[in-house]
C-alpha cells in the first residue's frame, strides 16, 4: 500500500473522529470528559452541586450545565472548562432547552410548576410560564415555532407558542412523561412516558397521537421498561430510545414506527447522544456509572467506559 495514502487515510480517520463527550455526574458534582474514539476517560472536573441537564451553544464555544442544588445554570468555556458566567434559572433547574436561534434558554422548574425563559445576551429572566405539576422534558421545534414542556405528574405536554410565549394547547399523554423531542423536520413530537413504558408520536399539526409504541423484551418485566432519552437521526430513518431500568436501547424505525431491535447497555440507561457523524450513539447509564458506545452501522455495543457516579446527561463537542 502506498505509504502516503496510508498516512492520509490515518489522518482523515483521526480528523473525522475527533470529538469529545462531556458527561454530567449527578452524585460526583463533576463533569467527566471522555474521548469516545479510544474509549478513555480523559479527566473529571468539579463543576457544581448535582449537575444534570447539559447543552452546547450552537457555535460549540459555550457549555451550559444545570447545577440543580446550586439553583443555577453555569456557563463554561467549552475548551478550557473555566466558568465564564451563570444564569438565573429559578429553583432546582434540571432540564433546559436552547432556542434554535441561540438567543434564549428555556428551563423547567420542577418544584414551582414553571418554565423560565432566559434572555441569554442579558443573562436575565424574561418570563415565567405556568405549566403542570413537575415539568421535566423540554424542547423547541427546529423551526422555532413550538416550545414544549412535559409535566410529569399532570401527564401533559404543553404547546407553547414561541412568539407569544403562551400555552396554545395541552395534550394528555401516558403516565409520567420524561423526555420530548421533535423530528428534524418539526412535523412530529416524540414523547417518552417512563411509568407507562411507552413512546408516543404526536402530529405537530393536530397535536394528537399518531401512534403509541410500547416495548416488550423477553425476560424483562414490563414495569422495568422505563423509557427516557430519545435520539432521532437527521434523515429520520431511525430513532434510539433509552429504556431506563430495562438496561437497553430500543432501535425504532422512524418511518414505520416499529421497534426493530433492543441493544443491551449499562444499568438504568438515562440519556443518549449521537456522535457528530451520527455513526455512534453514546448512552449515560445512571446505575452502572458508565457510558456505553454503540456502533450504529453494525448496531452493536462496542465499549463501556467508566465515568463516575450517576452519569445523567451528555453532549458531544466536535
Amino acid at each position, binding site marked *: 500500500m502506498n505509504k502516503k495514502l496510508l498516512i492520509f487515510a490515518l489522518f482523515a480517520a483521526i480528523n473525522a473522529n475527533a470529538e469529545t463527550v462531556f458527561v454530567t455526574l449527578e452524585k460526583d458534582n463533576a463533569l467527566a470528559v471522555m474521548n469516545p474514539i479510544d474509549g478513555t476517560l480523559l479527566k473529571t472536573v468539579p463543576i457544581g452541586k448535582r449537575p444534570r441537564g447539559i447543552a452546547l451553544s450552537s457555535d460549540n464555544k459555550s457549555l451550559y450545565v444545570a447545577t440543580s442544588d446550586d439553583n443555577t445554570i453555569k456557563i463554561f468555556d467549552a475548551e478550557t472548562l473555566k466558568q465564564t458566567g451563570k444564569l438565573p434559572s429559578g429553583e432546582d433547574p434540571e432540564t433546559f432547552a436552547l432556542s434554535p436561534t441561540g438567543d434564549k434558554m428555556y428551563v423547567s422548574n420542577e*418544584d414551582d410548576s414553571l418554565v423560565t425563559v432566559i434572555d441569554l445576551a442579558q443573562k436575565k429572566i424574561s418570563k415565567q410560564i405556568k405549566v403542570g405539576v413537575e415539568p421535566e422534558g423540554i424542547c423547541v421545534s427546529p423551526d422555532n415555532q413550538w416550545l414544549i414542556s412535559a409535566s410529569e*405528574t*399532570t401527564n401533559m405536554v404543553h404547546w407553547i407558542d414561541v412568539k407569544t410565549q403562551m400555552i396554545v394547547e395541552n395534550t394528555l399523554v401516558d*403516565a409520567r412523561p420524561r423526555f420530548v423531542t421533535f423530528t428534524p423536520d418539526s412535523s412530529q413530537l416524540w414523547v417518552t412516558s417512563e411509568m*407507562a413504558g411507552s413512546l408516543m408520536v404526536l402530529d405537530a399539526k393536530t397535536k394528537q397521537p399518531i401512534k403509541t409504541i410500547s416495548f416488550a423484551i423477553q425476560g424483562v*418485566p414490563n*414495569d422495568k421498561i422505563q423509557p427516557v432519552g430519545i435520539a432521532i437521526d437527521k434523515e429520520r430513518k431511525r430513532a434510539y430510545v433509552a429504556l431506563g431500568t430495562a438496561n437497553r436501547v430500543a432501535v425504532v424505525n422512524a418511518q414505520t414506527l416499529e421497534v426493530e431491535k433492543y441493544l443491551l447497555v449499562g444499568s438504568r440507561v438515562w440519556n443518549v447522544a449521537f456522535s457528530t457523524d451520527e455513526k455512534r450513539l453514546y448512552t449515560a447509564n445512571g446505575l452502572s456509572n458508565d457510558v456505553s458506545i454503540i456502533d450504529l452501522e453494525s448496531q452493536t455495543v462496542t465499549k463501556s467506559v467508566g465515568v463516575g457516579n450517576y452519569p445523567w446527561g451528555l453532549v458531544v463537542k466536535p
Partner: protein
Amino acid sequence: MKTFIAVLFTVMSLPLFAATKDKPKSPPVPTAQIIDIAFLNQEQTPPTETLSNLDLFVANKGVEGAELAISDNNTTGQFTHQNFVLHKFNVPADGNVTDIFKQNISDKFHYVITNLNAANTLVVSDLAATSDTILFDTGTVDDALRNEQCRQNTLHLLPSRAMKADALAQYMMKKRWSKWFLVVGNTPEDALFATALKRSAKRFGMKIVTEKKWEHTFDARKSAQSDISVFTQSDDYDVLVVADEQGLFGEYLAYRTWLSRPIIGTQGLIATAWHSTHDLWGATQIQHRFQDLAKRNMEEPDYGAYLAVRAIGEAATRTKSADLKIIRDYLRSPQFTLQGYKGNALSFRTWDGQLRQSILLAAPRSLVAVAPIEGFLHPKTELDTLGFDQSESTCKLENKP
C-alpha cells in the same frame, strides 16, 4: 373562588382566541367541572406510655397530604377545566364519627376520604353502602378489612400488615436470616401484626424459633439494660423480629440483646409506604413540596391521603368527567395507573380494592431496600408478591362496582 375561576378562564381563552382570530366567531367559554371531596379525619391521641419523646406528636397527620394533592390536581385542572375542592371534617379524639358523617357527609359527597381506625372505617363503609359514594380508606392497615370484612364501596390506599410483613420477609430471605425470634407487644394491633408476620414466615419458608410476649415494664430508662438481656436469651436465631406498632418498648431492644442480632419489624428496619429518607423516582420533588406546605416530613398517613386525592384527580383527568360512575369504573379498570413516586405504576387490586404498591424498607436515617425484592417473581406483576393475592383473598368484590 369564583374570581379565581373567572381569571383562569380569561387566561385560558386568550391563546384559544389568538389561534382562531381569523374566524369571526369567538370560542365558547368552557364550564368547569367541580369535584367535591370530603376528608373525614379523627384526631389521634399520643400513646400514654411511650418512652421516646423525640418526635413531635401530630394529631392530624394526613390532611396536609390531601391538601398537597388538591393543589396538584388543580394545577392540572387549570388545563382540563376541572376544579377540585377539599371539604375537611375533623372529629375530636373523643368525638362521634357516625354523627359527623350522617350530618355533614352522607348523601352530600360522592368522594369521601377517611382517616379513621378500623372499627370506624367499617361503620362509615356500611353507612355509605346505600348512597352513591366511593370511600378511600387512608387510615387502616388491617387485613380483615381487605378480606372477610371487605366492602364493595371502599378502596384502601395504605399497604396492609400482610403486605408489610411480606416485604420484610422477602428482605430477610434475601439476607438468609431464616431463623426468627419474634417479640410481640400487648396491644390488639401488635397481635395482628404478629399474625401477619407468621403468615409471611410460612409463605417464604422462614422459621420462628422463639416467640415471646413483652411483659416487662415500659420504663426502660430504669430497667432496659437488665430486662432485655435476660428477655432475649434463647436458642440461636438470625434476627429479632418485633411487633410493637405504638413504639412502647421496641426502640429499646437494639444494642441490648443477649446475642448481637439485627432488629426488624416495627422498629429497627421497618416496612412503610413512605419514609423521609426516600429520594428515588422523583420522590425528592414531593418531599420538598410537602415540607414547604406542612413544615415537617411527609409520613405514611399523609402519603395515603395524597394518593387518594391524586387517584380521583387522575381518573377525572383521563375520563374528562366528574361523574361518579365513570370515575369509579375507571379507578378499578386496567387502564388506571397512578404515579406514586415509587418506580412502579400503582393500581387497585380488583378483588379487594387494595392499592398495589412497592414498600420501602428503611432504617431511621437510610433507605435500605424497596420491596418487592428483586427475584421474587409473579406471573402478573411482582407487586402482587406482597399481601393477599387473588387466589388467597377471602374478599370477592365484583369487578364492576
